[in-house]
């Protein structure tokens, strides 16, 4: 048998006792369970309660500001004006006046003095973005060539063009732009114009290092054999690609090679732009063919309310066990793991 708990000692009962005894002071002697401060509080405020129905103002003095809060206020009074105005072309980070310690200062691109790893990288200025958009959309230079010219990552170039296109469309449609917000944010961040002669904006041809290639490997090869980077990649694993296949703009390497071989730089550069344009055209063609292939497998039937899209599948794809993952439909006899812990169900990409 479980131990019995006396009814007055149990928690809800105690709470109930407290609540019941708070309204007008009763002649009943307060139980020992009631809070200790109540007799004085109730005796002080009881006349007010009886005189007016509204709740009285508290006469308890406001809590004293803590020392930390006081020091924070002092700091704000002393240093706040320094940060009120931003200097054009300069960041306005608090690390400007806050060294981490006596012998360790902070860099100007370090917004948080204690976090050395957090560096605010410069962003493209409005003028730089306009230049990129102009090169791609008006002059018709291939993305790879623009990326190489300004030393801006290809993905960033593409993003800039997309955003600029939206911005310009909104301007044509007279949609309001959040320009004050954009200016305010831009003023706070380090910016870079893409001016000739400046340092590169960012590295553009970095490649991902496959973990298979981080190990030491001894491969016997005859002296007469020419062992290239492609061979090295194959030695590390069947799926490992050589660096030339992994880099974003392999045409740049071709250009440098042809310059070394004696082609005049101007000519090599023209060739590079032509190659980049050709590779982008091939990519667009592949994408178009893929879309066309998907569309060929689809029949669209329009009704009054909906369009029904029939996609042709092969029922045999379920395989001998009937559980192949690529087959259409929900699988029989295999649990669906969508309720498993840690399963990400938020869409992570936009088609």
């Amino acid at each position: 048998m479980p131990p019995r708990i006396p009814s007055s000692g149990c928690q809800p009962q105690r709470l109930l006792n407290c609540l019941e005894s708070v309204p007008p002071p009763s002649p009943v002697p307060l139980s020992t369970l009631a809070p200790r401060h109540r007799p004085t509080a109730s005796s002080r405020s009881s006349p007010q309660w009886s005189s007016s129905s509204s709740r009285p103002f508290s006469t308890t003095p406001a809590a004293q500001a803590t020392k930390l809060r006081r020091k924070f206020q002092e700091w704000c009074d002393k240093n706040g004006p320094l940060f009120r105005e931003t200097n054009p072309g300069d960041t306005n980070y608090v690390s400007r006046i806050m060294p981490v310690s006596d012998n360790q200062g902070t860099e100007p691109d370090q917004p948080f003095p204690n976090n050395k790893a957090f560096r605010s990288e410069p962003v493209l200025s409005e003028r730089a973005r306009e230049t990129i958009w102009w090169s791609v959309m008006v002059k018709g230079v291939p993305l790879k060539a623009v990326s190489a010219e300004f030393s801006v990552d290809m993905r960033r170039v593409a993003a800039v063009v997309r955003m600029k296109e939206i911005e310009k469309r909104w301007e044509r449609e007279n949609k309001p732009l959040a320009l004050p917000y954009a200016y305010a944010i831009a003023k706070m961040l380090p910016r870079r114009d893409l001016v000739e002669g400046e340092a590169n904006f960012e590295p553009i041809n970095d490649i991902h290092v496959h973990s298979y290639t981080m190990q030491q490997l001894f491969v016997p090869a005859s002296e007469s054999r020419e062992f290239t980077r492609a061979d090295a990649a194959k030695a590390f694993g069947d799926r490992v690609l050589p660096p030339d296949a992994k880099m974003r703009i392999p045409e740049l390497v071709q250009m440098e090679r042809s310059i070394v071989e004696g082609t005049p730089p101007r000519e090599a550069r023209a060739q590079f732009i032509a190659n980049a344009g050709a590779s982008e055209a091939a990519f667009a063609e592949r994408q178009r063919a893929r879309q066309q292939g998907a569309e060929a497998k689809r029949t669209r039937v329009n009704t009054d309310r909906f369009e029904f899209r029939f996609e042709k599948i092969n029922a045999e794809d379920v395989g001998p066990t009937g559980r192949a993952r690529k087959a259409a439909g929900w699988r029989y006899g295999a649990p669906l793991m969508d309720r498993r812990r840690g399963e990400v169900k938020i869409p992570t990409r936009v088609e």
Partner: protein
Amino acid sequence: MVVKIRLARFGRTNKPFYNIVVAHARTARNSRPLEVIGTYDPIPKTDLYDDSGKLHKDIKLDTTRAKYWVGVGAQPTDTVWRLLSLVGILPPKYRPAGPTPSPSTPGQTSKA
């Protein structure tokens, strides 16, 4: 035993998703069928970047197998009949009121 072409409901609460299955009529709805010939997602969807407001429904179907099973006498349920008639595998069963098209012209853009 009668072989039917029918829907098997999967998905979650308020999120139906159907397998179009060929199964014996007396087996349970979600039991392992003879064959899964397609899927039907009844929730209408919009196209990304399309603001025309037209909704679409996605259906996957192995038309060859569907024709085969219809040919050997499998009996589609009304819903499956409607879907199969959209691609012209079967003549439409129920028609909206109005002029009745000849039975040889099934759905508007159907190819089969």
